[in-house]
């Protein structure tokens, strides 16, 4: 016999919240595993690469070697 759901909308919301919490709880076997997981979850801010590109552009060009100067027309 099929049972109809007797849960109120509030109870359904609570149940969904509990289920989502259960799904997101994770166990780690060691400190290293925790840290590796955390590393994987950590994104490098894109601002660093942009800032780095600007810094490199502003660096003085390395001096040309004698043969580079010699080859230059």
């Amino acid at each position, binding site marked *: 016999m099929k049972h109809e759901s007797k849960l109120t909308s509030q109870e359904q919301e609570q149940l969904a919240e509990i289920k989502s919490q259960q799904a997101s709880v994770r166990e780690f076997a060691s*400190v290293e595993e925790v840290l590796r997981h955390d590393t994987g979850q950590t994104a490098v801010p894109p601002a660093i690469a942009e800032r780095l590109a600007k810094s490199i552009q502003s660096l003085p060009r390395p001096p040309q070697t004698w043969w580079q100067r010699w080859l230059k027309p």
Partner: protein
Amino acid sequence: MSETGIEPRPQLVLEPAEFAELYQTHSRAVYYLALRYLGDPQKAEDVTHDVFLKVYRKFSEFRGDSSWRTWLYRITINHCHNVRQSWHSRNLVTNADEAVWDNAVAQSDSPFRALETKELGQRIQTALDGLAEEYRLLLLLVADEELSYAEVAVLTEQSADAVRGKLHRARKAFAVLFQQSA
């Protein structure tokens, strides 16, 4: 051949494509070490920028007698030490007594149970912040699977046996602090 595919060789500058590949391969490891060692995202950004800029400028000094990762970590650790020293000179910081961790026992068999949310990162940082700097650095380095115990020992200027001994205490201390942070 190195882990990036870039062959270590004496040359004056890195080609843009080579540098981009180096950054792509190692920036997360460098940023993560700086972030969790210093506990400050802004400082970690600054350190990561400065480390890679230094690599770009001093590339010719890389002799290839260590891996790229080890070389980058050495620069990162030195830079982080400088940042911390400059910060410590302006702020008084005390570390917890190490003896506390020797006597402490984790309260459950699975101390590393956590919600897989932003909360996890905060708890990790809280636990790391409570450790002595040496323990924090050891745990962060050992967690990188690309590094051997011997490489961690070289980076932290001690023997591999000393690393193993300290790691035992560091893991125990982290477990207690991690549980307390729940």
